[in-house]
């Protein structure tokens, strides 16, 4: 598969004449994002109508609860933290042409190790240090977990879609085994790890319930974006992704880079697990698997692996999932409808993004 790294429309213009263009560009972006969402809402709305629910009431609840109320927006922003880390990890992998579909397994193992280490570490060191150590341990464990597909791909050429999917099935089971048999909290009948006290978790932002994990997630994804687009290392990874034979020809150490990509990608997925546990959940229960990875993958593609665009889409996804649950409850629609809504939004956005890209490409090149 090829990743289209053709320059996209979001290039920053510095000179004065271009400022006008930029404003028009922003308007255009806004239109190209809101337009499709509106279209998606109309399609989803007709499903609601069919089951006898007022779509307008539904959407106003989604908006109110996911975006416009202080409580809602805090929840939305909190939900974003692990998703941003996952998206950052996927951006690295996808730009380098590695189809890491094992994010969920890496996420869970990161989560379990963070959940196991943090409560133990706070006993012996300051909370902030314990958190940092837990982050590092979670990252390392996820990295090690990714070594099998990485080495197989790097030195044996085994396709990583197969291996990462297999490793995610394995990782999910392993996480359960760890929770039930190794790290189990003896104090509860429910199989779960020890709970990290609320006051030892990542601090919340100001006077809100928003986790500071959000900031970490933002830093992670922006760093990844800049590294991938502005540095030699990022360019090397993109060369490997776009044409592995060219990478060999250019003298890049493809196997080592491959392992590095997997390690970074999995490490970020592990951090995603850790940030969710250390910032919000406090422990891991047996059989817990939020399967964020599956929802984040399409988001990263829609963003064309651009970190800033991914932030926007992750935000949208969070609004929909937080607001959708609330709206469904209030109107007596099963919560499953949120899935349908997300799906329609994804498809319509993909369609619009494609049309926009084609339009932009021809327009920009004709200008030259």
């Amino acid at each position, binding site marked *: *598969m*090829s990743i289209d790294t053709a320059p996209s429309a979001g290039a920053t213009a510095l000179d004065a004449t271009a400022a006008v263009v930029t404003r028009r560009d922003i308007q255009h972006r806004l239109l190209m994002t809101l337009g499709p969402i509106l279209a998606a809402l109309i399609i989803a709305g007709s499903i609601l109508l069919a089951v006898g629910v007022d779509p307008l009431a539904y959407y106003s609840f989604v908006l109110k609860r996911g975006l416009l109320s202080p409580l809602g927006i805090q929840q939305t922003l909190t939900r974003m933290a692990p998703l941003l880390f996952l998206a950052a990890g996927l951006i690295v992998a996808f730009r380098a042409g590695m189809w890491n579909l094992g994010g969920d397994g890496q996420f869970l193992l990161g989560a379990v190790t963070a959940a196991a280490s943090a409560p133990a570490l706070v006993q012996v060191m300051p909370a902030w240090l314990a958190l940092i150590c837990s982050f590092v341990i979670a990252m390392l464990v996820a990295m090690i977990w990714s070594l099998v597909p990485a080495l*197989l791909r790097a030195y044996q050429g085994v396709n990583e*879609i197969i*291996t990462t999917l297999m490793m995610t099935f394995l990782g999910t089971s*392993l996480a359960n085994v760890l929770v039930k048999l190794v790290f189990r909290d003896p104090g509860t009948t429910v199989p779960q790890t020890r709970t990290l006290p609320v006051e030892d978790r990542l601090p919340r932002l100001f006077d809100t319930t928003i986790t500071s994990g959000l900031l970490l997630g933002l830093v992670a994804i922006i760093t990844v974006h800049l590294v991938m687009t502005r540095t030699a290392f990022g360019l090397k990874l993109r060369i490997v992704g776009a044409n592995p034979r060219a990478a060999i020809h250019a003298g890049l150490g493809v196997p080592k880079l491959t392992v590095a990509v997997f390690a970074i990608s999995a490490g970020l997925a592990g951090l995603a697990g850790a940030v969710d546990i250390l910032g919000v959940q406090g422990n891991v229960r047996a059989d817990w698997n939020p399967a964020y990875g599956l929802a984040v993958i399409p988001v990263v593609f829609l963003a064309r692996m651009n970190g800033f665009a991914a932030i926007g889409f992750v935000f949208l996804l969070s609004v929909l999932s937080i607001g959708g649950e609330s709206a469904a409850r209030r109107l007596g629609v099963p919560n499953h409808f*949120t899935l349908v809504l*997300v799906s329609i939004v*994804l498809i319509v956005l993909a369609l619009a993004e494609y049309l926009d890209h084609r339009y932009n490409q021809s327009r920009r090149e004709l200008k030259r």
Partner: protein
Amino acid sequence: MTGLFGEIFLSALLFGAVTAAIPLLLAGLGEQMSEKAGVLNIGIEGMMLAGAYLGFVGAFYSGSLWLGFLTSAGGGIAVALVMALLCVRIGLNQIVIGIALTLGLEGLTALLHHFQFSRSYPRLPAVDVTVIPLLSDIPVIGPALFRQHLSVYLAVALVFAMGYVYRRTQLGLNLQAAGDKPAALDVAGIDVVRTRTIAVLTTGALAGLGGAFLANVGAGLFIPFITNGAGFLGIVLAMLARGRPVWVLFGALLFGVCLSLTTAMQVAGINIPTDVIQMLPFLAVMIMLVLFGRRASLPAALGIPYERGAR
């Protein structure tokens, strides 16, 4: 043999292994067809769910399993049509659309089930089996393998039919060319988009049938999320099989047998956590990959939309 591991029990285990393998087999065969033609079909889980739901609805209201299979294939094809339009015809990203379709059908079928069946939980009557004379009298294996629903035999026959198509027909050549070098197929006068569309729609039909088998024969009913990742297993099977339908069959049976082994060990009273046992088939495959893993022979154009004359 008597006691815990009596003949009846062993053959029930084997029977269960086959029943569990068939949906994976159909999904894997379907996915293999798409992949051969260069389309990575991640939406197969959604197609299976559509097939499971519509297959159940068809069978339940008509009283005929076969009508259920028909409606399920229709359901799978309908979802595949969306995929074909968006990913093959206009070339949208296959992974985005595939995952979106899976999410959407998980939600949609759960929603429909909620409004339709969540009070009555209707179940189908027992499926009737076709007994193959003589073979069915073999101890243990006979009752397990040769007293199955007709659709099981048909699914296995399909393995060989697909093998024939791939190796002995023009269509087989076309599919392989569409996956390996679509431009060459195009200049040979065969429409790449049409070839890939046929492949994707066939995948939809097979995935739908797999879903229907799971719901109607495997469970006898439909409940939300009934496929439980079977479609993703199908993707793994198809990729491991390297284009050969028989290997999909072996892979599906391996998973089926592992599931039955879990049950066997528990019934034998062996105290191993189920999570550990559940890891076995995946561990087995990973070890095989580590030992024998060689360059993957995936089609060169897998996942890349074809656009005539593009540079």
